[in-house]
């Protein structure tokens, strides 16, 4: 019959379309989003950071890895609120008088979640793992640069032999990138271990679905804390868009978010539904570094003029809604050895202009200063991955103010790779590059002249290219001395030198804000790098 013959033809494309859409959604349970629906004892954490490529913080070593790893791995030592080092997986330690030998005693009766006991051999294995080039560790590797050898002198004693004294060793060991993993876990292939490292933490990694989430569950054999964790599960999701993150928090789909933007922090302050955790990262502050190796900024007067000619305080206050405090130190406010000198940064536009005049930079016809036919233009590549929109706006304000001084700053937003390229090629005058490390030893990495030489990867840390033998000496001695008072004094002098040379314009701590649901209690414990620890968190009521 004609009428019936017609049907298959029209129906086919329509049915195909509809059918496949519906069929796919039916089996959607197996495809995207294996995130468990939030139940009463599952906490959903939404991270705005890039998803790690490997969950083992020994490999590579960046901040997103540490956020995750601190839930299931633990370090030999920890740091308390005052910045003092406390025992953790290592219960005691001693140093030889010459500082070249360290002896650690491992804590008793601790087991990894796979049942392997924590002993000296395990610790040695970990240290070897970090130092092994095959592991491709960067942060941990650098931190253990001075450690030559690690041996298990008996079941619970580890001896480290150093090439030079290292006053920062304990601080380094407190970082998650030197966490202790189960040797059985390390024995697996790297890919396997990257999927689910085995540690002593309050949680264990159940599964990791790329681009989606990492599922953690409670470790029933957890002994190093106050008993088992209250939460049964954690669903760790990656949500790159900040608007979506905060929306998800407000709608209750997630309970904690990181990388909270200043405006959302401010707007959430009013309500009780959402609470705020401020955990500035250790190490350097967020600052603008001036490339002293080239161009106009090689002249200290120009640097000082730029620093004193702009006023960043008003900008910081408004753009950050009061969530960021101005810093006048090279070190983070959580560093107890931080030294700050606000006076150096008082704004004085007239003085700044005079400095520029004295330096020979004369205003040209377009308002921009010139000298010997060269214009006073400065290149400022900005990494959109590193700088949040509020910070980028701050830079633009600085740019505007500098124009008033006759300095033309060119801001170029770049993606991460291109930004590193630009830095590697020394094509910058100003740059803002955060650096997270526990302890004042970060000053050595950032301001010692050795930091000017690029690593084979092209990377180097001393962006200001500070090259002062006196400063080098201070930093080297500070890195080696075992005397805490001397150490404090040396670092103070070092910071003074850095600040007075106007090599940097300190802005504020590395912002590390978390917003969480008012339904949670026990939030607030953070480790030495500012990772919140969820082992003590539970749902209220």
């Amino acid at each position, binding site marked *: 019959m004609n009428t019936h013959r017609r049907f298959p033809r029209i129906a086919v*494309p329509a049915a195909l379309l509809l059918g496949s859409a519906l069929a796919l959604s039916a089996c*959607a349970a197996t495809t995207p*989003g294996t995130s468990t629906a939030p139940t009463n004892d599952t906490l959903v954490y939404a991270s705005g950071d890039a998803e790690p490529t490997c969950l083992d913080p020994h490999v590579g070593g960046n901040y997103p890895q540490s956020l995750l790893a601190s839930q299931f791995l633990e370090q030999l030592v920890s740091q308390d609120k005052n910045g003092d080092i406390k025992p953790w997986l290592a219960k005691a330690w001693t140093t030889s008088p010459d500082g070249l030998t360290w002896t650690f005693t491992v804590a008793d009766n601790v087991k990894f979640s796979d049942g392997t006991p924590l002993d000296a051999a395990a610790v040695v294995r970990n240290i070897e793992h970090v130092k092994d080039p095959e592991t491709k560790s960067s942060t941990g590797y650098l931190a253990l640069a001075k450690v030559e050898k690690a041996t298990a002198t008996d079941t619970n004693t580890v001896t480290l032999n150093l090439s030079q004294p290292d006053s920062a060793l304990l601080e380094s060991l407190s970082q998650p990138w030197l966490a202790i993993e189960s040797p059985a876990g390390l024995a697996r292939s790297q890919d396997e271990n990257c999927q689910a490292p085995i540690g002593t933490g309050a949680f264990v990694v159940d599964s990791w679905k*790329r*681009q*989606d989430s990492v599922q953690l569950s409670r470790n029933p054999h957890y002994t190093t804390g106050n008993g088992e964790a209250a939460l049964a599960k954690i669903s760790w*999701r990656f949500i790159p868009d900040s608007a979506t993150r905060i*929306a998800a928090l407000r709608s209750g789909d997630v309970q904690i978010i990181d990388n909270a933007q200043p405006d959302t922090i401010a707007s959430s302050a009013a309500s009780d539904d959402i609470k705020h955790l401020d955990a500035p990262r250790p190490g350097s502050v967020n600052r603008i570094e001036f490339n002293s190796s080239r161009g106009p900024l090689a002249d200290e007067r120009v640097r000082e003029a730029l620093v004193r000619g702009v006023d960043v305080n008003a900008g910081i206050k408004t753009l950050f809604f009061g969530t960021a405090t101005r810093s006048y130190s090279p070190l983070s406010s959580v560093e107890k050895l931080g030294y700050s000198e606000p006076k150096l940064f008082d704004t004085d536009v007239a003085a700044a202009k005079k400095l520029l005049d004295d330096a020979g930079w004369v205003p040209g016809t377009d308002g921009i200063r010139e000298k010997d036919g060269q214009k006073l233009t400065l290149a400022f590549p900005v990494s959109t991955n590193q700088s949040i929109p509020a910070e980028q706006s701050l830079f633009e304000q600085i740019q505007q103010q500098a124009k008033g001084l006759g300095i033309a700053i060119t801001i170029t937003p770049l993606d991460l790779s291109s930004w590193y390229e630009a830095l590697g090629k020394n094509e910058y005058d100003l740059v803002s590059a955060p650096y997270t490390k526990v302890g004042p030893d970060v000053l050595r990495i950032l301001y010692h002249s050795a930091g000017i030489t690029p690593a*084979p990867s092209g990377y180097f840390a001393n962006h200001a290219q500070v090259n002062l033998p006196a400063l080098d000496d201070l930093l080297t001695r500070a890195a080696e001395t075992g005397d805490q008072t001397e150490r404090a004094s040396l670092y103070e002098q070092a910071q003074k030198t850095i600040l007075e040379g106007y090599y940097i314009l300190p802005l504020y701590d590395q912002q590390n804000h978390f917003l969480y649901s008012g339904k949670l209690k026990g939030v607030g414990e953070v480790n030495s790098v500012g990772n919140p620890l969820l082992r003590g968190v539970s749902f209220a009521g």
Partner: protein
Amino acid sequence: MWAGARRVALRIGGAILVLWAAATVTFFAVRLIPGDPAQAFLGGPGSQASAEALARVRAENGFDLPLWQQYLGYLGRLLRGDLGTSYSLHAPVADVVGEQLLGTLELALWSLVIAWIIALGLALWSVAGGRVAAHVAAGIEMTAAVLPHFWLGSVLILLFATGLGWFPAIATPDARGIILPALTLAIPLAGFLAQLLREALQEAAAQPFVLTARARGESRVGVFARHTLRHAAGPAIGLTGWAFGSLMSGAVVVETIFARPGLGRTLVSAVQVRDVPLVIGLTLVAAAAYLVVSVLSDLAERALNPALRVSRDALVERALEAETPAAPGTFSTPGAFGTSGTSEPSGIFEQPETSGTEPRA
């Protein structure tokens, strides 16, 4: 049969050409932008990798060879079906793509379905509702078509997730979780589709066979359902094929906003770390998916409208009657060329052009 086989072969050849072009352009595009691919291996740029590690990575992957040599090597592997291993994820590209493909496909299909529903509704309303409705609908269509995904997605989250709480802000495995992302993609597409549908419907409604149908006693709805819709659907289905490509690219933004796993998000991070094999693998998959959908929509259009199926007799017929479009009909005596009376139904068909006669009052 012959003709059909040849056409299929041509199509496949064309598809291979497209895929090759996609792979080549992507390879050079990614490699030529600044950034060291070796870094991708070692956790991204700024990973402070050691010299040995970098050197080893370079040697293993031939990064120190000249670019054209790398390209040829890569092409050779592709021809063998080896998509390579992702630098950053350390997993076979084929696996990564396979995992992510379903998510994006699901999103695209849902978006298509929702877009069609909205477009049909709008087009119908504007055709049936009179002049005011037509103008309003046209305005809605135009606005919808230009809404950017990133804005629309955020607004939808604000309205429906945070505000009304009807849908979750982030992707969940159930149907509720896909509505907002699909809507974000569907609304602009619906704008385009509706415009096309409306014009096609209006054109179809002006055809003479509509009068015949109404003179037969057919109701307006009947005319729509039985006649005009099918005529109007053809171009819209053709547009759908194109739309699929734009949906895939829109998926990049939508997947990021709604934190949905899928090809788009993976592609963004792959490009950021210069993970060449992964970028190429994803691009190829997207190109292949687009080609498949193209073919499907082509087939659907043909199934819907046999006028597009040109047979050999039609070609000859057209050649013979080049200047007299309004003298239709083939041969008044059957059997002149052995067509009308034979058992094989001939495919003689002329485009229903407007007849050359004067418009009669």
